[in-house]
């Protein structure tokens, strides 16, 4: 790392401390995970991560995270649109409360959602009457992950929507576009990168989520047991190597997602610039 000339002091100590602390808290512990999995041997590693129970947990974690992120993409876009474009009573309170999933501890969210969506809960009783069971099924996991991921889409789309030049819409309209054509062909392509970024962020967060899910999931092996829970179960049985193998696969998936998010943000900035 080479510093260009600057008259400001403190570059060395600031960067030195940053890298030292980053290594100590994040990089060295994460590399311990990879080192541990290396002691496993390829065959044992493969046998662990392809065991039916583990595969089922991956399928569940990634599948429910994907569904929740899709729900958030649709409703997050809607929430952002309504907050930016329309006025209604209580809008500022609603706007502030969108961040609730960021601020509310996941365990609290978990027990609250379970209480509401259980068969005798405030909302669950009406759904149960229709034959829809939410709590203690994979559907409950989707509900929890939707809650957790909601602010990601709203907060990435909202600023882009607010900065949108209204004159472009007026131009489209005066050239004879209907409102729907303006929205689908002018507005939507502009906010697409932000929407995809929000979707990817919500998905990445949902894949690794633990606290809000375990209360509502029911945690039945092969049916409603998410991958992070399986890691903890293996740890509690002192199967450290297996827990590590499951974690490594999840971590690699996270890295790929992180890379995708970085590319999306780069694309988004280029589009807006």
């Amino acid at each position, binding site marked *: 790392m080479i510093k260009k000339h*600057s008259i400001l002091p403190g570059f060395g100590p600031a960067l030195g401390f940053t890298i030292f602390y980053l290594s100590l808290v994040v990089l060295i512990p994460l590399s311990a995970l990879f080192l541990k999995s290396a002691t496993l041997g390829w065959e044992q590693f493969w046998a662990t991560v392809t065991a039916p129970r583990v595969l089922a947990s991956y399928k569940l974690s990634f599948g429910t995270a994907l569904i929740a992120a899709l729900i958030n993409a649709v409703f997050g876009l809607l929430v952002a649109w309504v907050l930016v474009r329309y006025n209604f009573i209580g809008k500022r309170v609603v706007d502030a409360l969108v961040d609730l999933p960021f601020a509310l501890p996941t365990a609290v969210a978990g027990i609250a959602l379970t209480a509401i969506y259980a068969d005798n809960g405030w909302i669950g009783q009406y759904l149960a009457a229709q034959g829809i069971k939410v709590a203690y099924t994979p559907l409950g996991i989707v509900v929890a992950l939707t809650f957790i991921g909601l602010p990601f889409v709203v907060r990435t789309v909202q600023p882009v929507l607010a900065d949108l030049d209204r004159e472009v819409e007026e131009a489209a309209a005066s050239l004879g576009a209907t409102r729907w054509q303006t929205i689908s062909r002018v507005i939507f392509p502009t906010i697409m990168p932000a929407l995809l970024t929000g979707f990817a962020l919500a998905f990445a967060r949902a894949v690794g989520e633990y606290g809000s899910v375990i209360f509502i999931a029911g945690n039945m092996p092969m049916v409603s047991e998410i991958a992070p829970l399986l890691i903890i179960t293996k*740890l509690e049985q002192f199967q450290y190597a297996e827990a590590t193998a499951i974690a490594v696969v999840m971590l690699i998936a996270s890295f790929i997602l992180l890379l995708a998010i970085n590319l999306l943000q780069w694309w988004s900035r280029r589009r807006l610039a």
Partner: protein
Amino acid sequence: MSNANVTAPIPRNIATREATWVRWLLIAITLVFLTAFLFVPLLSVFVEALRNGVDAYWEALKEPDALSAIKLTVLVAVIAVPLNLVFGLAAAWAIAKFEFRGKSLLITLIDLPFSVSPVIAGLVYVLLFGLQGWMGPWLAEHDIQLIFAVPGLVLATLFVTFPFIARELIPLMQEQGKEEEEAAVSLGASGWQTFWHVTLPNVKWGLLYGVILCNARAMGEFGAVSVVSGHIRGFTNTMPLHVEVLYNEYNFVAAFAVASLLALLALVTLIAKTWVEWHTQRERSAAH
């Protein structure tokens, strides 16, 4: 507004806006969605906590295990937040005020804990410091216990709250540039003087915002601390873990009573955030 009315009153109303019924429909769907997913869960925490009356609520909070969980949660946050604050300031100073190779890689690495599952965050410390971990035998020999003890809780919390303050400060300090600092230094101010009297006042709201978010996550973290805590009641249970223990014992009123404190913390966090945003906007518009 008046200008727009003169130029094109008719297209503005018809083609650059949605019909009134569409607008109200979209607002209605949004509010129903947010009610089912946000407002009702928040409200239910308080209703469930007060189900057996105010006395039962206070009893649940005055119970010794609940009190020790509250103390432990505050202790962990009091250690973890300042450490990440110092890191955030150092990282933002290096990244925002200087040019160097590998900067975007460094920013990505700082973001890394955001995309790692909290359970994995706890697991890595168990692999390092647990009895079967790399340093486990050495630690056991010297009678040092990190895992299933307070230091493990602090480490796991440090990991999951690692990016929060740096993430707020870096873009803010990048946006502000370095002209003011350069002016201060060329007028003879020392590095520390520049930092205290020029940089810090400029970023104080962003800093506060980062600290608030970091604290909320530190006090509310569940997955990571769950792995390293060992769930020793009265000793290594933070508030979120105590909520889980009570809930699994079917002691719902007590679980929601402790949870309601965390929900209040979340509400205070949201109010503080709104207040900080309001201040930032006011200062921005005053500057223009």
